[in-house]
């Protein structure tokens, strides 16, 4: 009979096996979303809800990220934030994440409180390594 690993050893093995067991990102979903960014093999796709961002009105943003656009691997974490670089300020609200699946999340509570040039920052993590992809968006009154 094959011997099982002791419980603590098995747990430790599973916990440290994160990167090796990395999930695939939902590539089919990624290519279907309207917003597309790609930098150095990291691909991000997004869709805002509602589609047209209105100044002062809350919106959510669905994001799919792949850290390897060949192997379609999911990142360990996605973070989304936004700011107005020319004004030197960010959003007054902190988006909250709803995980949909590996490499696939929705962020609620986004609000662009002023008209003008905004920049959405998509931070894609592979462990501690972060890659930032930016999307410029102009919002009118």
């Amino acid at each position, binding site marked *: 009979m094959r011997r099982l690993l002791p419980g603590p050893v098995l747990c430790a093995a599973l916990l440290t096996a994160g990167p090796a067991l990395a999930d695939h990102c939902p590539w089919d979903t990624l290519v279907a979303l309207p917003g597309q960014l790609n930098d150095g093999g990291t691909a991000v796709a997004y869709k805002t809800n509602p589609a047209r961002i209105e100044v002062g009105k809350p919106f959510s943003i669905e994001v799919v990220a792949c850290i390897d656009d060949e192997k379609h691997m999911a990142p360990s974490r996605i973070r989304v934030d936004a700011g107005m670089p020319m004004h030197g300020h960010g959003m*007054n609200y*902190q988006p909250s994440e709803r995980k949909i699946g590996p490499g696939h999340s929705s962020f609620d509570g986004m*609000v662009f409180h002023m008209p003008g040039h905004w920049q959405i920052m998509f931070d894609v993590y592979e462990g501690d390594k972060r890659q930032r992809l930016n999307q410029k968006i102009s919002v009118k009154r």
Partner: protein
Amino acid sequence: MKLSRTACAALLAGAAIVLTGAATAPTTFDDDETALIVSHGPWPVKTDADPSNRVSGKPAAIAYGKTLFESNDLSVDRQRSCATCHQADLAFADGIMRGIGLTRVDRNTPALFNMRLNRWFGRDGKSDSLWAQSIAPILDARELGMTPTTLKTRLATTQTLSDGYRQIFGAAPAAHEAETVMVNVAKSLAAFQETIVSGKSSFDMFRDGLAAEDPAGIAGYPEAARRGLKLFVGKGRCDLCHFGANFTNGEFHDIGLPHFPEPGRVDKGRYGGIQQLRKSRFNLLGPFNDDKLRATAGFTRHVRLTPKNWGEFRVPSLRNAARTAPYMHDGSKATLEDVVDHYSEIPEDRPHQDGEKLLRPLNLTDAEKADLVAFLKTL
């Protein structure tokens, strides 16, 4: 033949000359400016009842709220009411630099028009609903100085207030917990305040005329106000914060005013407001929100506290600006001319300037300042 909006605006302006007999060339607006101007309406904005307040929009609660608003029984010394500082003939403000209840407070008393359009309440946005904000002056030791218990006793022992309460909330005040009585009083006060809506201004007539390309609609709008409006949406960039039908983004900015109500004591502004909001039992995430799904609590759930919030105050609506002097959160600007001077000459090396690059001195001429004030007076 179809005319462009610019051509229409020029023609309309020409018509205005004929109708007003003005001798000089009138101010015209291009398509972009016209779109910006039209975005400040229509007025009034249609609003729904507040889902967080089950008596919002209910006639009986509105009438009871008015009674409470004017009742000295809501103050610990029975010498003052909400209406003492929010006087109907002073745009529901008090016309003085800083409000005076049982003692003087740190901030200017805000006017109460069009409150249903607000997202945040109070100069620092410490409340996320009008009813929660209505609790604040009742409990503030500098304003009405009550406690939930004294308020409950006062209602229970004052026949008219007790009867009104029972009619709306289905039981006498004595049958409810003190905190519940206080929240119900606040919700009635909010129901009344929601009905204080300002009427159409001369700007609104002009804006509607421009939107409808109607010469008669724009004819009566003063030329100085037109020049001021052009500055407002152009060189002044005022409408980056004062946009929409209510002329505000409803958010918070540091505009370079002092943070100290008196030497050695700081007014934290929005930073303190968010801290108070988060620890309040009366915020929209708490047990007194009548919107059980908490759909109304999204802004409260996501609001972010950062060091830049220090010294920020809520961007006020500019409607009725001519009636709401003095100005700013601390009432430090006596006139609209003083306000325009502030933005025209705001120092670039002021504290915290690095956190908000938006405000730069406008360097307006005296004529431009006068035009901007003329425009503000039409709101």
